[in-house]
């Protein structure tokens, strides 16, 4: 269920910037599921993910004038999402230092009959949670959302080579954590 338009993301965003605010609905339809997944995975919580996603698109409207016409819209909106998450993370660190979000992890799980499957995925999530924010983000973007390294580099404003190294380190770290957990069971 989404609004259709033959225009590119960039054309639509330029239109929004120039006052055709209603076109933001089309951009929302194109991106909100991806942004929601990205933020939910980072925040490890679907509810928080929804709130943050809402914030991202409200910011898109509020800061529409900062959109540069040559910029790739995907990079711009993901950067906005990163900032929204960073703000959320900072305030969470301040107010809920002691509280771990592990309980809410269950929400992220799809409904499965197979108990073992649930347990395994739970472990994957627990392992992902032990990565640092950046590593988790990189895996979400490259593995869950299957973005190209170039796109990720554009979002994170760094080089492709740098992204390659970091993705490798994240996979390495995840493997260590995941199979260590198994070893200790």
């Amino acid at each position: 269920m989404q609004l259709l338009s033959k225009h590119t993301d960039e054309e639509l965003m330029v239109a929004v910037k120039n006052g055709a605010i209603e076109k933001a609905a089309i951009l929302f339809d194109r991106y909100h599921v991806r942004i929601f997944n990205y933020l939910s995975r980072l925040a490890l919580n679907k509810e928080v993910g929804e709130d943050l996603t809402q914030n991202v698109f409200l910011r898109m409207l509020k800061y529409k004038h900062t959109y540069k016409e040559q910029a790739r819209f995907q990079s711009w909106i993901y950067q906005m999402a990163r900032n929204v998450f960073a703000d959320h993370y900072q305030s969470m660190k301040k107010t809920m230092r002691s509280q771990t979000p592990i309980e809410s992890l269950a929400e992220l799980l799809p409904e499965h009959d197979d108990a073992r499957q649930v347990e395994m995925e739970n472990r994957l999530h627990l392992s992902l949670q032990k990565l640092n924010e950046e590593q988790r983000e990189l895996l979400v973007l490259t593995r869950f959302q299957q973005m190209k390294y170039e796109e990720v580099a554009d979002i994170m404003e760094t080089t492709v080579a740098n992204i390659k190294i970091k993705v490798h380190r994240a996979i390495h770290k995840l493997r260590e954590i995941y199979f260590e957990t198994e070893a200790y069971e």
Partner: protein
Amino acid sequence: MKKLMMIALVLVAATLQAQEYKVAKSSGRLELYVGKVTVEGYAGNEIVFTSKSGKSETDSRAAGLRSVNGSGLEDNTGVGIHVAVKDNIIEVYQLKKLNHPDLKILVPKGIVVSFKHDSKYGGDAIFRNMENEIEISCQYNNIVLENITGPLTAKTLYGSIDAVFGNNVKGPISMVSVYSHIDITLPQTVKANLKMLTSYGELFMASGFPWEIVIKDGMQQWGDKVEGKLNGGGFALDLRSDYGKVYLRKK
């Protein structure tokens, strides 16, 4: 020598008694079907027509006769024009196709002024110190606008348009020439959606105008086309010359 000539001219002008004709209207629409005209805004509530050329010498032979001409119009004003008032519309005609009176008109603020002239026999159309809405449509006349605010639609096929706007510019503003230049001066603070277009001419714009380019949509144009927002955008400001140049200056 030049000085003497000037003095002589001034003396001649002073002795020629300017003829005057008034219409008590401060709203409605003034439609000018004459070849050459100078229109000025003023704070009164009558339209005042004066003819600098004055009335031709009184012909004693013509006493008791009425002047007739091919157009079938008679001078019902004493300043060499025919004026017809129909409700809110005041129509002004010149009497002969080839001869136009040297007409100057003072108009109150609330009147929409329209100038329409298709023949090649004419002179400049000059509009000065006006807050009125102005509509100009001609083929050969050059158009001169000084200290006006708009709204304005101006078209001349072969003539040029020179416009200097006052401070409180009102839109929309649309200027079109096919063969000649358009030269417009606007206050730097004007808020408008600008469209400048030419097929064979060039577009010029004062540097430092606060504007941003907007991506165009729809059918692609060849030639040169610029679309942008001045000071964040506002009324429509369309400037088009197919073969001439377009200049946009700031005050």
